[in-house]
């Protein structure tokens, strides 16, 4: 009897799979997302569903064009993460077409035009966000204060449909700037940062998300919990989150100590905007970040540095998406620069000096 030998060993395999990895990430996002959907009510729920649906549809179309199996592609969960993160990065009351445009650019251009899963240079969700942020600045900066589901003044189901799919609501009376935007605007008006920060709700309240912003800019403790869960499950390592949040904290603390009128503090930077979501869930995207731990640490530091620079000196109040995309472009270089040391060799690849057993 002859048996088939067409494949080299090993003839056993760990239980890990792409699907398992991706669904672990989704599970880690669930608590924060549920809290956010509650916080921003029906329009947020509709926008979230719309973004997910648009991304999945786009994935199916692209995979079909490429001759693959749409069911398999969607089943591995990677597009669900893209859609999910994209939805979290949009203002919760944004109209449906913003979600669709962002999804098409995220999945169709950033991911599939580059060759699909594993081939994209840039983080798809961030490409989607940046395209709509640059194209539709009005819609993308119209933030509303949270109106928790079923609370007084919160839009009902039908009203919510109108916000997302109708002709939109006049947000003039409702809209407000996000905290980072507020501090930046106040600074432009000549109000020093340490004073404008005083006018915002306390750090504790900010942390929970009772302030205007994108969905993913709230519920910091729950996002942190999800991030720690991912580390515990060994889906991500500490290098990117620590590199990024550490840099933000350090720069914020340092510069606000030097010039409190010009710079917000380190803790404020950590819990504002998408710092935590980005550090644990977006910058850690496997495909678009470096593969070695050294590279990851450098990548995280770069993300933190660029975020702080853009927040502080550039026109946009929140620079996280730009920082990620710029660092994505650096990832191949970081891969080259930070290779692990080979066994028995120095970092340069020369054989180690010979030791002696004593």
């Amino acid at each position, binding site marked *: *009897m*002859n*048996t088939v*030998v067409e*494949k*080299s*060993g*090993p*003839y*056993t*395999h*760990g*239980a*890990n*799979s*792409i699907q*398992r*990895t991706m669904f672990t990430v989704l599970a880690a996002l669930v608590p924060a997302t549920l809290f956010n959907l509650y916080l921003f009510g029906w329009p947020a729920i509709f926008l979230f569903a719309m973004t997910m649906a648009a991304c999945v549809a786009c994935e199916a179309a692209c995979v079909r064009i490429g001759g693959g199996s749409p069911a398999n592609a969607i089943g*591995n969960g*990677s597009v669900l993460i893209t859609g999910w993160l994209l939805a979290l990065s949009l203002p919760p009351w944004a109209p449906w077409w913003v979600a669709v445009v962002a999804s098409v650019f995220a999945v169709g251009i950033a991911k599939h035009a580059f060759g*699909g*899963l*594993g*081939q994209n240079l840039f983080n798809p969700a961030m490409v989607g966000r940046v395209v709509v942020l640059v194209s539709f600045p009005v819609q993308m900066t119209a933030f509303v204060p949270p109106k928790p589901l079923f609370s007084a003044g919160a839009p009902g189901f039908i009203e919510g449909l109108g916000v997302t799919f109708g002709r939109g609501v006049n947000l003039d009376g409702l809209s407000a700037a996000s905290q980072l935007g507020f501090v930046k605007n106040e600074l432009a008006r000549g109000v020093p940062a340490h004073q404008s920060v005083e006018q915002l709700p306390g750090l504790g309240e900010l942390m929970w998300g009772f302030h205007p912003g994108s969905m993913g800019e709230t519920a910091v403790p729950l996002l942190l919990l999800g991030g720690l869960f991912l580390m515990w499950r060994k889906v991500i390592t500490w290098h990117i989150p620590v590199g990024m949040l550490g840099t933000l904290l350090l720069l914020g603390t340092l510069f606000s100590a030097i010039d409190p009128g010009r710079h917000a503090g380190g803790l404020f930077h950590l819990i504002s905007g998408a710092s935590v979501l980005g550090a644990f869930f977006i910058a850690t995207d*496997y*495909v678009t*970040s470096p*593969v*070695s*731990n050294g590279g*990851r640490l450098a990548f995280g530091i770069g993300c933190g540095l660029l975020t702080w620079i853009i927040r502080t000196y550039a026109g946009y109040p929140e620079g996280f998406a730009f920082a990620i995309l710029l660092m994505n472009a650096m990832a191949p270089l970081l*891969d080259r620069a930070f*290779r*692990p*040391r*080979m*066994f*028995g*060799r120095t970092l340069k*690849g020369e*054989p*180690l*000096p*010979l*030791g*002696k*057993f*004593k």
Partner: protein
Amino acid sequence: MKLFPIMGGIHPEHRKDLTSEKAIVAMPMPATLFLPLQQHIGEPAAPTVEAGYLVKKGELLARSDGAISAPIHAPTSGRIRAIAEITAPHPSGLPMPTIILESDGKDEWTDLPPPIDDPFAAPPQSIRDRVAECGIVGMGGATFPSAVKLGLGTQRKLEVLLLNGAECEPYLTCDDRLMREYADEVIDGARIMAHALGAPRVIVAIETNKPQAIEAMAKAAAATDNVTIAKVPARYPMGGERQLTQAVTGLETPARKLTADMGVVVHNVATARAVHDAVRLGRPLISRIVTVSGGAVPNPGNIEVPLGVKVSELLAFCGGADGAARFVSGGPMMGQPLPSLDVPVVKGSSGILALTRAETRESEPQPCIRCGSCIAACPCGLVPMQMAAFIRAEKMAEAVRIGVQDCVSCGSCTYVCPSHIPLVQYFRYAKGRLATQDRERRKNEQTKALVEARNARLERLAMARRDAAARARAPQPETAQEAGRIAP
């Protein structure tokens, strides 16, 4: 004992409980044995028998042929049917010259060489000679002739014999059982080996997932003054020579060096028992303990198998292997796939596994998602996903630059890959390609050298001919003289 961390590594599902509590049982002698002339690294053995010869158990069938080679002995008494080409237990499925021995059922021993009464007083060379004479090879699966490896101390000062009882491969429990049931023999064999090496100390390294083996070995070691037990963490590939050396001594073997250069020599526990048998009893290596396991085997266990038993017969002894998706010789991580079940058990067969589809978890490869798991798992500090990408594009020079030749094919990267990419297969392919390129380059150089030599020779010939012709044309002294003599 102070231990040191190793690079990378994984915790595969060990599945050792299938056989770890099964005591070693001897397999009844089958009617026919098949003994390939090459069961070791190096030159094949040269037969000393012919078809029709009657041999006794333990008699020499083929002698060592070359500096790195090992002899082969009769596992039982009987008649040589033939020396024929039989499928070898190698993934290629190619045939190899094999001695076919028909058992006479008597299992009669030949006259064995006398025991070496006090091996510690005997010159080390006599121990090495006995080990060579008895056909002992590295029994962890590497099958390097042990006598050669016991000679590493002749040119270096060795400090320690590191006895490898890690057994980090999943499923395998043959070393575990051996240490539990033959602890005294193993310790004695190890001390004899240390004497042959000129190493004053022995450290036995055993993974902590084998507490009974640790206990038994510690008890056996207590009677000696130079053997200690190191409880190393269970982490694949702890049993790799360099990994084990690092875990126990903290020394990282430099590239292109041997552990022996640092004063450490690693031998397997089963080899130590074989050395004990050879030195104390004069017995050659004619059987080994094999773990027969896997979900498709109804009665898995640890079997003392005469060398040369066909795998199909061994599996039948264990109740068959219906529904197996893969047959592997050795462990599932680094073992070799079996091209057929009609191949014999050889000196390096530590395990015969019949694995079901549920156990192998084979799956279609997906695109790499750059998760970096392979990098974290690599015990050699390599970047497997990048090497595979280069190899896929046939960029062998790039793959070499980032270390494909440093890969030990342990399979850790492939085991953890969520995309089921057959990384090791890429690396084996690359190493094969590089070896071929190397051979071709050397062949070309040789051809070039030969051609140049031929051209030079022709040139010399032509020059000689030209000279001769020139001399023929020129007036030659003798001729002139003759002419002169005639002329006057």
